[in-house]
């Protein structure tokens, strides 16, 4: 199929899609007129029921906890996929990146970049832990916190060398932490089953003050496990992709 034909086929399809879409829109309540009742109902009962004031987290880690477990495993599988797809193939060996680009002058990281990265490592790490541990109270949680945590490790890479990054987050440790995070989430659910409750029931004490860090039972615990799993997955992905810059392919096909 030539590019021109391909474009025309697409445009015909897109026109049809747009027509059906607009037709579908005419049946929707307009923007700003959310009809409910599901969201309204959860907004009304979530704080009393879970003692979490962050209703989005309550949904993620409690009401739709099973769905989030699936989402978390998509992330886990994607990270494993990256590691598998980028494994060293026959004929590839490691070599300093600079050899590969003889004709290219790669400027060293400027002092400003190194300095700012170094300064930001601590605050970013703290921010990541804050987000991971405050799912129940504020717009945060394991997913956001995990990404910020991983960022602090990437800052170490920016501030220094790849080898330092690798020494600080060795692959075995990262793998293990990721596995603990993924398994921890599933185990929280299975513990409920062992106690004779439905899977992922909130069996921990909820606390009495809504929005306290110690409140909301398993929501905080699951958020913690999700946080370390997300952080490990992203560190793994970043280091696998950085690894590629060190690879040199011996035989060219």
């Amino acid at each position, binding site marked *: 199929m030539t*590019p021109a034909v*391909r*474009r025309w086929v*697409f445009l015909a399809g*897109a026109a049809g*899609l*747009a027509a059906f879409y*607009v037709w579908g*829109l005419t049946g*929707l309540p*307009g*923007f*700003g*007129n*959310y009809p*409910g009742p599901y*969201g*309204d109902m*959860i*907004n*009304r009962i979530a*704080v*009393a029921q879970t003692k979490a*004031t*962050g*209703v*989005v987290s309550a*949904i*993620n880690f409690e009401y*739709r906890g099973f*769905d*989030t477990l699936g*989402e978390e495993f*998509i*992330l886990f599988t*994607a*990270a494993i*996929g*990256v590691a598998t*797809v*980028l494994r060293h193939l026959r004929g590839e060996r490691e070599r300093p990146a600079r050899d590969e680009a003889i004709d290219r002058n790669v400027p060293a990281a400027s002092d400003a970049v190194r300095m700012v990265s170094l300064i930001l490592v601590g605050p970013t790490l703290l921010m990541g832990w804050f987000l991971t541990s405050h799912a129940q*109270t*504020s*717009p945060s*949680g394991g*997913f*956001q916190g*995990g*990404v910020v945590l991983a960022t602090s490790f990437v800052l170490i890479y920016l501030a220094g060398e790849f080898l330092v990054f690798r020494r600080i987050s060795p692959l075995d440790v990262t793998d293990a932490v990721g596995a603990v995070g993924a398994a921890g989430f599933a185990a929280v659910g299975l513990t409920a089953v062992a106690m004779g409750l439905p899977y992922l029931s909130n069996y921990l004490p909820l606390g009495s003050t*809504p*929005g306290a860090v110690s409140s909301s039972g398993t929501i905080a615990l699951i958020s913690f496990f999700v946080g370390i799993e*997300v952080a490990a*997955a*992203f560190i793994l*992905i970043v280091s696998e*992709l950085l690894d*590629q810059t060190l690879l040199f*392919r011996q035989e*060219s*096909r």
Partner: protein
Amino acid sequence: MGIFPFIVAAWILIAGLYGIVTSRHLVHQIVCLIVVQSSTYVLLLGVGYKRGAAAPYFSDIPVHTPAVDPVVQALALTDVVVEAAVTALLLAFAIQAHKRFGTLDPQELVQFKG
């Protein structure tokens, strides 16, 4: 105005699809896929929006304050993170495709088998 955000979502979706169909570079194609996925965020958050309502966080507002739908926000949130990981997987495939075939043009890659 009533359906404007939904039209925006459709526009982002179709613009992204157009990019995927006509792309001449795998990395560009992956970015187009991200654009397609962004349309779902606009749609989800647009569907859940309630005029004049607060964010669904009751740390500093009374519990009975009208708030927007938290369910679609929860869906969008997990979606963002998973999307980032899936993007990384696709980029890994692009790296291997380039290693193996020496090109990143999807329309040239079609000629290669296996």
